[in-house]
């Protein structure tokens, strides 16, 4: 895949140029490209003067990072305890079925990804689904389907 790496200098510029910034630089890269492209990791290692193996170990250790491209629309299903008790599994089933995808997968057209996350700290509104950063609380069976029935998906 080809990426526009010209944005990297600006991202690097936001943080102090030291190993301490590694996680935050990777977060910003992930935000920009929706995943961590290999070339960007190589550039990061060079820029922050840390070994490439360390960059990879950090990139694979933390849940927030993905080495595979994510969809344009990311549906995050909270499976924290409060959500679990109030039926998060059922909601997950409904969404997986509606999008014909399993959690952790991205659709072939790159439109959707489903992720499960353990607690987003909105337990009082359980079960919670986050579609592209927007929180939806008290999701029920029909609501879950509606959430992912995005117009872009038509046809």
């Amino acid at each position, binding site marked *: 895949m080809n990426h526009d790496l010209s944005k990297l200098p600006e991202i690097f510029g936001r943080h102090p140029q030291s190993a*301490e910034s590694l996680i*935050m630089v990777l977060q910003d890269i992930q935000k920009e490209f929706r995943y961590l492209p290999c070339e960007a990791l190589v550039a990061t290692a060079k820029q922050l003067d840390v070994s490439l193996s360390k960059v990879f170990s950090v990139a694979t250790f*933390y*849940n927030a990072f993905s080495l595979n491209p994510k969809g344009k629309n990311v549906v995050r299903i909270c499976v924290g305890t409060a959500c679990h*008790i109030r039926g998060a599994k059922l909601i997950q089933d409904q969404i997986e079925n509606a999008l014909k995808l399993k959690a952790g997968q991205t659709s072939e057209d790159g439109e959707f990804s489903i992720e499960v996350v353990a607690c987003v700290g909105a*337990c009082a*509104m359980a079960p919670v689904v986050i579609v592209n950063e927007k929180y939806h609380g008290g999701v029920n069976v029909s609501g879950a389907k509606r959430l992912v029935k995005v117009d872009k998906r038509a046809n």
Partner: protein
Amino acid sequence: MTRLQKEYTQKQAAYPHKVIVCCGTGCLANGARKIVDAFEKILSERKVKDFSVEAVKETGCHGFCEQGPLVVIEPEGIFYTRVKAKDVPAIVEKSIEGREIIDSLLYADPTNGHKIEHYPDVKFFSHQKRIALRNLGKIAANSIYEYIAVDGYQALAKVLLQMTPDQVIDQISKSELRGRGGGGFPAGKKWRTCRDVKSDVHYVICNGDEGDPGAFMDRSIMEGDPHAVLEGMMIAAFAVGARQGYIYVREEYPLAVIHLQKAISDCREVGLLGANILGTDFTFDVRIARGAGAFVCGESSALMKSVAGEVGEPRAKYVRSVVKGLYDQPTVLNNVETYANVPLIIRHGADWFRKIGSPKNTGTKVFSLVGKVRNTGLIEVEMGTTLREIIFDIGGGIIDGRPFKAVQTGGPSGGCLPSSKLDLPVDFDSLTAVGSMMGSGGMIVMDDKTCMVDVARYFLHFLVAESCGKCTPCREGLYQLHALTEKVCNGEGTEADLEKMEQLSKMVVVGSLCGLGKSGPNPLMSTIQYFRDEYLAHIRDKRCPAGVCRALIKYEVIEDKCTGCVACITACAYNAITGEKKKPHFIHQDKCEKCGACVAVCKHDAILVS
């Protein structure tokens, strides 16, 4: 500072009426932003007596998230719940201009249906004692002036201008404040040890990781009262001699990062962070370190690795991190709630604080009360309040009047307590004594429809995924425990497995390196201890009494009750239900995946779970 406070208070006093809109994550998700916009639009379009756009306050979380979005009208304290943007014109017209109360927006007490008009009369609030949450829902979260107006930074001024570091530590020690992150270690002792280590560099860190599923109190404090956390950190930094602090915030909390960033830059602007704070020789600054989704990073040594931009693996603590912490320098690490308590202890004195709570467990604790309880949300109570008071008085009891089964405290490190423990006074020591723990304060209420074996499996599944993998007992032991619970849930478990689980749990507790493994088997051990019957039902009778474990249950239509409304047919994602309109439907067992969607949508209780 007194000048700033005076100026701001005078400006506010020009408009006696205020509208307080809760903008915590819960209320925002339910449309609080639109309400604020609607108020601002109306107020800028027409003149309302005694009222201006500046009087619309976007506050942090009141804690009463179940009923959000919340709007409070001051000074009367009129309390409206579940407000929508379209209600705003009526609120302005009737309640602000006309001093009238809109009945339909009032909160109804779930126990007796009575409508409640004023904020302090709601039982959810009246049983609480708020110290760490003192400003939440009262002041605008994003304004340093709002914080200063409620005597914010007075404690810092007192510390810098009138006290020595030793006196500060003495006060904190005397208050007997214990770390609110879960461990309950005396904060004063921690600060003293750190100060006593001879080094040019000391650090203070605020742990805002809060990876416990089911807890969100730190999130709300960081979002709703960021300055309280900063002030606590500054006082700690002065006491131990640190010049640099870090706040570690998990990546799932983007709003907390934004609010903390604003708070930090506001502080720098008015001279509360940076060199020579308040004209003294105290110099201190704070940086935010963002987490990246790793539960283990809530553990202090792993967190410090992560702050340094490394993989968050814990280390064996022969030497504690107060002595050798971040970059091998002496480091004080406390959690968000602990820091939020500090300014009030300094302002009102250690004796004041010690009178709250119970001996050895002074002060209050914030809990996130969630699950199958009527009033879910954040609450702060004195230490020693009983579980019954929390769940039934403040929480309003169990949803749909179902029976209470268990309450899970302390997240994956804690345990599940049965109804026989409802009169237990909640504090660090009493919870540990009965096989659970305080943890960061998650409190998840479960009713008879919750399967305890499934709950144990749930936590083990979580911990297997979150174990960093560094030490074998945790990595392999939790994995095997999870496999065993899976076996029981599938109806394939034996009584020998139950014994195996108990033995293996003990081994994982003893052999693991850090808190994740050491406390990981707690949910399993406590459920076996208190709900052994339920395990035996799965093992001997191949039955899940709560109707949760999919391998052991069956869904059927009760023909007499089914009205043929086709709701279940529409909901079933597996095409396992067929039938005509107005005639009883039928569930094809070979296609049924037992997801429970049919039960969730059936309004006539016509689906039998057996």
